[in-house]
């Protein structure tokens, strides 16, 4: 899967689940602020990504991810 494919997949997925416009999801935007995530909804993000990409993310890893750009990189490294 290319980076572009990961990006468009993630954006569509998150826009739907967290009910935001896809246009607000940019590589430099902060994930938690943009999606208004709290400690409870962060776990939804993990479940969604794990399920979609067939990976297993642990809490410590996802906590280090700040922006959407970092999230795409993270997923790419996991499925590589």
């Amino acid at each position, binding site marked *: 899967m290319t980076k572009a494919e990961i990006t468009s997949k993630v954006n569509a997925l998150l826009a739907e689940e967290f009910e935001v416009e896809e246009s607000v999801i940019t590589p430099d935007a902060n994930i938690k602020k943009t999606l208004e995530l709290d*400690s*409870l909804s*962060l*776990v*939804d993000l*993990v*479940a969604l990504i*794990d*399920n979609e990409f067939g990976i297993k*993310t*642990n*809490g410590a890893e*996802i*906590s280090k991810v700040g922006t959407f750009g970092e999230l795409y990189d993270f997923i790419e490294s996991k499925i590589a």
Partner: protein
Amino acid sequence: MQQGEEIKQLIPQREPIMMIDTFYGATETTGKSGLTVLADNVFCEGGQLREMGVIEHIAQTCAAYNGVKNKQNNGEASKPKLGYIGEIKKCQIVRLPRVGEQLTTDVVATAQVMNVTLMEATTKIGDETIASCQIKLFEED
């Protein structure tokens, strides 16, 4: 398998709100518990275990799973941590259990971030599914 008083090693809840009486065991991501509905259950009314009792039973199954994990990670002597329901989604209750019936609940942990665990639960009486839900459990450090 843990039963009766041994359950207190796994969950922080105490009488009159203990809603599991058996814990069949846990794997890396799953847990299974049981409860026989007694007439003096605090959530029983008119011979039925009400919704609150069913949901609390599910929540305590998740708590017991966490209790087992906690012992594996921090030693057999570790006390169960206090935990709370953070969120419940898509909770369907098909029917209420009657006094004398035995519930079994299977939970699967689907994701965990810090002290929040997301779990899928299915509750059965025999082979009949009577409830299912998605639940987030929040655990204190």
